[in-house]
């Protein structure tokens, strides 16, 4: 039954991939959505059954078959449902279903073939994502890990006719491969250390090991895994691909680059919680990287003018929050934020999609404004989600963000807490800047044609014409033209997600507010090393297992109620301050932002250009290598087209490659010389050794 959850989307993929081009859109889209909904329902029943079990033994294993054996090492292709993966599959199938439904309307302008292609990729993605979270060992997770990367690549490059999309896809892939490299090494090191890749086995073994105060094997393993996570979850230094990934269709941004795939790194740390807990050095790095990413992306988000890019940087920033939580050892808080974030960020992305849809492809918020009355459904859902992400009390983001900040403070990391609060202020500010510029104020979307070139500092990606809906030429709207609000399927998804953005937080109401932090309690066993879910077969194991299965103490939680309440007050104030600031700056005194932009031109430019990170990478890595590789151009080697697949780091390799291949000069004597030299060197090695 468990296996059905990923296999249903896979079946949908098979059908749509083989016959999608010949089927009408209603069938392909309907099928793709239907498999996701059914998968969601199955997931609900499974989780329901899981919840009925006693908390300590909430674990369902399904071994499909033994996948790999080597000596005494053996590995099953197995799925495991526990408290942690239960949350994940609900998020993936639930939000996934909504986004599928949304896409049936959003992508309806595509041709039948492209439509089918889109949904087959989307289903395939869900399959791999479910593999990733359900896998009971590192290698099954890695299958999903690689698979989602591949699907993300295919989906970012969905509009491959557009150079920016193709480049973004390659960038995402290349950056992810760097992360994957570390991940595989980490996995190999796990095999060496534990002779197993099963999460439970590793956790049990790690538990028996001392906490590594100095940098040791566990620290190295976890660090490698974390580098893998930074690639997938867009953290410093590997975050650069995510903003560019916005070149993909908006539902993809919502599903992959907000709700699910990018959170895989967070999930992975949660999955290996015991391992990370025994490597405090790595945890420290995780926390610092998370906080730094949160702050940096937040500041960049403040000045971006592309609606999706603002959201992209916001995603990077919120992911930073999650890593901060993970780094604090507050795994429950991280997963909690992951879940609430999935709701409101998906809602925001889908809302931005609805805006773009209404404006026929316009993404520049400077050319929006006053949309409130034209597209009310989109407006209200967008506002709800924005309030949620800003951390206004009562909505989802408040609870989860607050738990993270509380845990950070509790662990004595006041600086990181400060960073978190600052980011929180930034979040509220840039989100409401977005809301105000998009939905309030003057209607600026009529003046598109004239104003376009006037913006000298428009980011480069905007100079390309309307990225989406290439098939429909974008007509210039003027005042009075009716803008259609989201069609029914899109509205449905938006409304459900907006409701989710309000309610999702209530599963984790903290004790301080009279709640029971149900989610935290639910997740807690998943972060412990127990094998309570396994039938206890052997006698000597039984004792240990029972001991582990005793409910954990919740000592000291109540003691901090006062502290938690005051911290909550601070962050609530911060949230309101951010919203107020944004309203003041971008609604009341619109001259101030412009003044500030000129007064602090340097800072503004720095932020607008995303701290020049892309430029620095370009100047230090790409350009020098480009020069080298262009030396090879004399043979008519078309780098732009043929070599385009290799971006960034790829240029380095291809530069070396072009030099090295010159050795292969076609002369048989050179080849013989190579053999001869090899022979002489080998013999010399033996004789002079």
């Amino acid at each position: 039954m468990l296996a059905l959850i990923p296999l249903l989307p896979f079946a949908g993929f098979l059908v749509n991939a083989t016959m999608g081009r010949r089927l009408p859109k209603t069938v392909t889209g309907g099928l793709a959505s239907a498999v996701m909904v059914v998968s969601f329902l199955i997931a609900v029943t499974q989780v329901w059954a899981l919840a009925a079990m006693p908390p300590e033994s909430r674990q369902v294993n399904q071994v499909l078959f033994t996948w790999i054996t080597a000596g005494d090492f053996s590995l099953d292709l197995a799925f495991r449902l526990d408290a942690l993966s239960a949350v994940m599959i609900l998020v993936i199938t639930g939000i996934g279903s909504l986004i599928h439904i949304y896409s049936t309307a959003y992508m309806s302008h595509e041709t039948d073939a492209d439509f089918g292609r889109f949904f087959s990729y989307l289903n395939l993605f869900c399959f791999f994502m479910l593999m990733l979270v359900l896998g009971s060992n590192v290698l099954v997770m890695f299958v999903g890990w690689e698979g989602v990367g591949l699907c993300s690549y295919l989906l970012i490059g969905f509009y491959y006719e557009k150079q920016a999309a193709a480049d973004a896809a390659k960038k995402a892939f290349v950056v992810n491969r760097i992360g994957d490299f570390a991940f595989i090494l980490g996995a190999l090191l796990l095999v060496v250390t534990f002779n197993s890749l099963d999460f439970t086995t590793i956790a049990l073994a790690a538990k028996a090991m001392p906490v590594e105060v100095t940098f040791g094997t566990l620290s190295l393993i976890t660090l490698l895994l974390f580098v893998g996570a930074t690639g997938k979850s867009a953290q410093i230094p590997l975050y650069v691909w995510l903003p560019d990934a916005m070149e993909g269709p908006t539902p993809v941004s919502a599903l992959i680059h907000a709700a699910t795939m990018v959170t895989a790194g967070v999930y992975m740390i949660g999955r290996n919680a015991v391992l990370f807990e025994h490597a405090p050095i790595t945890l420290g790095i995780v926390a610092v990287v998370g906080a730094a990413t949160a702050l940096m992306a937040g500041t960049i988000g403040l000045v971006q003018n592309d609606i999706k890019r603002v959201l992209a940087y916001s995603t990077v920033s919120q992911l930073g929050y999650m890593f901060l939580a993970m780094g604090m050892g507050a795994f429950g808080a991280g997963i909690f934020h992951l879940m609430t974030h999935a709701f409101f960020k998906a809602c925001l992305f889908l809302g931005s999609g609805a805006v773009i849809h209404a404006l026929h492809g316009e993404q520049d918020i400077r050319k929006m404004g006053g949309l409130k009355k034209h597209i009310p459904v989109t407006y209200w859902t967008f506002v709800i989600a924005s309030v949620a992400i800003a951390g206004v009390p009562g909505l989802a983001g408040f609870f989860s963000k607050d738990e993270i900040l509380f845990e950070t403070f509790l662990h004595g990391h006041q600086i990181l807490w400060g960073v978190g609060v600052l980011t929180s202020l930034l979040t509220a500010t840039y989100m409401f800047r977005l809301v105000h510029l998009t939905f309030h104020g003057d209607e600026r979307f009529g003046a598109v044609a004239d104003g376009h070139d006037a913006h000298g500092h428009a980011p480069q990606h905007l100079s390309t014409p309307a990225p989406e809906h290439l098939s429909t030429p974008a007509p210039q709207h003027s005042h009075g033209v009716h803008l259609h609000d989201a069609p029914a399927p899109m509205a449905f998804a938006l409304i459900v997600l907006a409701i989710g953005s309000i309610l999702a937080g209530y599963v984790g109401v903290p004790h301080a507010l009279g709640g029971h932090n149900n989610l935290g309690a639910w997740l807690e066993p998943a972060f412990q090393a127990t094998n309570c879910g396994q039938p206890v077969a052997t006698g000597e194991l039984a004792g240990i297992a029972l001991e582990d299965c005793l409910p954990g103490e919740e000592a000291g939680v109540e003691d901090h109620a006062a502290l938690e309440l005051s911290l909550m007050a601070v962050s609530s104030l911060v949230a309101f301050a951010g919203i107020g600031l944004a309203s003041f700056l971008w609604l009341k005194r619109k001259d101030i932002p412009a003044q500030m932009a000129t007064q602090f031109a340097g800072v503004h430019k720095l932020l607008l250009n995303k701290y020049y990170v892309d430029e620095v990478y370009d100047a230090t890595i790409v350009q020098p290598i480009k020069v080298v590789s262009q030396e090879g151009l004399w043979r008519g080697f078309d780098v732009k087209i043929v070599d385009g697949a290799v971006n960034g780091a790829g240029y380095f390799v291809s530069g070396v490659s072009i030099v090295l291949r010159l050795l292969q000069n076609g002369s048989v004597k050179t080849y013989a010389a190579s053999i001869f030299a090899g022979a002489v060197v080998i013999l010399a090695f033996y004789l002079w050794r």
Partner: protein
Amino acid sequence: MLFYAFAGAAVIGSLLVVTQKNPVYSVLALIASFFGLSGLYVLLEAPFVAVVQIIIYAGAIMVLFLFVVMLLNVPREDAAEWDRAHPLYRPMAVRIGGALALLLALELAWALSRTAGLGGGVADQHPAVSSVAELGRVLFTDYMFAFEVTSILILIAMVGAVILAKKKEE
């Protein structure tokens, strides 16, 4: 001192092979070198090998070479017209090749000089087995399978040579 005479013949012959520009001379020099080797085989009390060396190697294989040289009728080496395509590499290959060959010879000599037990006479330890009958017996017992394998080898060579050198049909 016959050894040095034959060895000299073999070495000089071989050197001539690789220094002559005219392939006909090269082939002839190689035949001369083979005679030297043949003499060495006699010194090693392997008369049958010596005879085979002359009859098969020099007599058949080298004649095949000679035949091809004559067939293609290219009495001398091409001028260096093609070499200019690789101004950098070709002379380098020659020099590197020469240097490597020298190095290899030194390495081999050095290795052999360090190997114990090579100073003794070649015939000191065991009596020679040079009877053709014994040769044949061993060939068709111990080496029977290897012998059969060569039949396939030669078949491939025959078929292959025909396919590769046959003129185009049509």
